[in-house]
């Protein structure tokens, strides 16, 4: 299975949290990810602090899984910044899935700021005979 950011607006090298600007002006970050391989499934763990389950979308299009999380602005009202080491913004990351993933049975859970996606592997397929249609009328 490949891990590969296919989203056109994303930039940055593998593990950095570099952000990009979207048209709306919100910054979008590429969340850090762990990817594990087990005998019956894959597991993806994504750091999405400050999002809520309702604000996270995980969608599969073809063989690409895209996770997008909206994060509500946190620094509102009359505040005076004193020290800033990180920015707050939305998240997005795309992953190319392998053929052995059963996309119908994906499970996604959000807890403590981490999104865990379980991707079960397809049950073993029996070889199937394909009937051949056509042929001459002779």
């Amino acid at each position: 299975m490949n891990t590969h950011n296919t989203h056109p607006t994303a930039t940055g090298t593998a593990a950095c949290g570099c952000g990009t600007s979207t048209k709306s002006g919100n910054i979008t970050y590429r969340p850090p990810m762990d990817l594990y391989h087990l005998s019956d499934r894959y597991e993806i763990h994504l750091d999405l602090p400050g999002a809520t389950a309702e604000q996270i979308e995980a969608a599969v299009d073809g063989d690409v899984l895209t996770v997008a999380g909206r994060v509500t602005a946190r620094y509102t009202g009359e505040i005076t910044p004193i020290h800033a080491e990180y920015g707050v913004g939305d998240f997005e990351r795309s992953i190319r899935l392998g053929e052995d993933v059963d996309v119908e049975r994906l499970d996604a859970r959000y807890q403590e700021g981490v999104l865990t996606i379980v991707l079960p592997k397809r049950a073993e397929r029996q070889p199937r005979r394909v009937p051949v249609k056509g042929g001459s009328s002779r």
Partner: protein
Amino acid sequence: MLNTLLPNMFPTDLDALSHQMSRLLHASTPFSGPGPTAPWPGINIWRAGDTIVAEAEIPGFRLDDVEVTAARDTVTIRGRRAPSAPENAAAIRVERLVTSFERSFQLPFELDTDAIEATLTDGVLRVTMPVAETARPRRVAIKALGAGDQPRAALPEGGSVKK
């Protein structure tokens, strides 16, 4: 342990500080995230009225994994979590490397440690610190000293104030 000494709480040029921090908080250019040598987690600190708020993003840490302690003018956050690899898993890619942290920050005034509160929601740790009553600026009345007045401070025996 990393100490972060903060700049003066009451800078003379508030506009410049605010603008600089604004730039960091709402960067329109890509904000480069922490690299391998930057401390984890990042900490943001701001002031809202008479309260100082510090925030850190610590996804994956549960309430029991985290500890916040405060003494006089220093707050320390620390945490330790179990590795998140499932059993019998082969790691294809691991970017979420940090499983324990400890960071302190020191404020340039005394904290009312009884009034400090901390919350952890969706991986975001927030520590709210009201500025201690005694540390807030207070107006000191200036009295004019007249001809017959003695200054309040005690003088050595036989001393006098030159007028």
